[in-house]
């Protein structure tokens, strides 16, 4: 028997596989394809204080082993989430985690205050790393001070588990991770997308309406694995690894590098069942290698 459960702060997940925010809607979109109760957790779409229309079309470009997106946090706001979506998903037999975004610290705090009353929101993921919004977003995530200011304010407004999602677009991600930890984060998740760009050479125009967007997919995995390894060696709080996980093998790679849990994002677009297949792979992998608990797998890379 292998024990797949993992702990993120005071929160226990039945297994280490979660879905990445913005790639899995509110879970319902995938209910025809998988049994959602087999997931460790669902991190729902980035939620802001007020509704957001996001950026104009086109928002997507395919790239080698990846894609650029420029959605820009389109969502109907926290109130709509609390009134209309939460009642539909609160009784899913998995952990529901809300990704929280904002243009200002007050925005983040406001979202958390509204979520505080929703008992089945197991945790929040504080997004200080969205590359596709003009204000806030990634700008909080590229300096230690910016990170510290958001995280400590949110910490006062939210007493359940808080995960802080980091941007990879920095010189030294371990500094930002340590700032998040010092400001009260229960865990850090990384990486969000890399700021990228593509040009339609025949039309001589950018492929995205916003010129730049966030690069995700298998292409970024080597960089994300490296950052997870660095951060896991720099902080004491759990690290949630993501960035280009396409299957169970890749999930194990992040765990060997030091991740306590993982998120699968872009791969959901290609295989809507990838998450459940990854859970099965991890279980099989642990059996084959005589590993009885996920905690043994985390950081088990031999150097």
């Amino acid at each position, binding site marked *: 028997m292998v024990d797949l459960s993992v702990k993120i702060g005071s929160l226990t997940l039945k297994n280490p596989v979660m879905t990445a925010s913005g790639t899995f809607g509110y879970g319902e979109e995938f209910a025809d394809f998988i049994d959602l109760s087999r997931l460790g957790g669902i991190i729902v779409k980035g939620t802001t204080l007020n509704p957001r229309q996001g950026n104009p079309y086109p928002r997507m470009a395919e790239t080698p082993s990846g894609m650029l997106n420029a959605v820009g946090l389109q969502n109907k706001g926290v109130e709509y989430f609390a009134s209309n979506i939460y009642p539909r998903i609160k009784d899913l037999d998995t952990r529901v985690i809300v990704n929280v975004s904002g243009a200002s610290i007050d925005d983040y705090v406001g979202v958390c205050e509204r979520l505080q009353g929703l008992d089945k929101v197991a945790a929040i993921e504080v997004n200080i790393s969205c590359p596709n919004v003009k204000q806030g977003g990634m700008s909080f995530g590229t300096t230690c001070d910016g990170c510290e200011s958001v995280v400590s304010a949110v910490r006062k407004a939210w007493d359940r588990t808080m995960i802080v999602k980091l941007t990879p677009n920095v010189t030294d991600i371990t500094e930002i991770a340590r700032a998040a930890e010092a400001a009260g984060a229960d865990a850090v998740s990384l990486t969000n997308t890399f700021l990228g760009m593509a040009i339609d050479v025949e039309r001589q125009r950018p492929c995205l309406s916003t010129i730049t967007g966030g690069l995700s997919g298998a292409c970024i995995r080597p960089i994300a694995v490296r950052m997870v390894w660095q951060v896991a060696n720099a902080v004491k709080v759990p690290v949630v690894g993501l960035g280009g996980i396409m299957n169970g093998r890749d999930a194990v790679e992040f765990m060997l590098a030091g991740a306590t849990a993982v998120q699968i994002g872009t791969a959901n677009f290609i295989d*809507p069942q990838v998450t459940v297949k990854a859970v099965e792979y991890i279980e099989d992998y642990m059996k084959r290698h005589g590993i009885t608990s996920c905690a043994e797998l985390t950081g088990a890379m031999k150097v």
Partner: protein
Amino acid sequence: MDFIVKANLKRGDNYSLLKLAPVKGNMPQVKPGQFVQVEVPNSKSTYLRRPISINYADSHELWLLVRRAGAGTASLCNAPESSVLSVVLPLGNGFTTDVKGTALLIGGGVGTAPLLMLGSRLAAHGVDVHFLLGARSMGDLLQLDLFRQTAEVHVATEDGSLGHKGLVTTHPVLRNENITHIACCGPMPMMKAVAAIARERGINCEVSLENMMACGLGACLCCVEDTKDEGNVCVCTEGPVFNINRLKW
């Protein structure tokens, strides 16, 4: 859901008609205008699935008419017979079939594909169906025989090699005063021109959009179209078929 390629029939230089059957189980119910997301095997430069409109479907077969537009669709066009494709379906809302009177179904290029099934469904419901099919040249008109078996076909070619010479929007059938409904699928300029005519004439009109998409499930929010009532909505779940009254164009 895995499908086996029963037949791959070249149609002109740039199109393949893939006739697929489920490897196991039955085909789900499909509405005209719905689409599928196909995983592209063996294409190094293709990462995402490709959305392809459903040309025809019954309880044991699925037809996809694929235009060779880039490396991904080219790889699909070359799918060997007996190979297996992973297909997510059925996706999207499909065309209204609750139509009375005379319906004009206007297609341009590979946009004619979903109209075949729609016309057949409407004709079976007693609607007076007319197809208006446009292409650059006669050789680009696909499945003419099947369209003709289904309903009356009007043709417009830019070079005049078959039917009316000119764009579909200049075809005389558009002046038919009995038309109560238009369904349109084709290049964006064509759809916008058709929508303008429909608006002017007060004819109910639906168009099928082809915005670039990643997931096809309403999760990635990449394929959005700006609507009058709700702002940006996903073409994959709220569409691909929209009544022109919802659109800002």
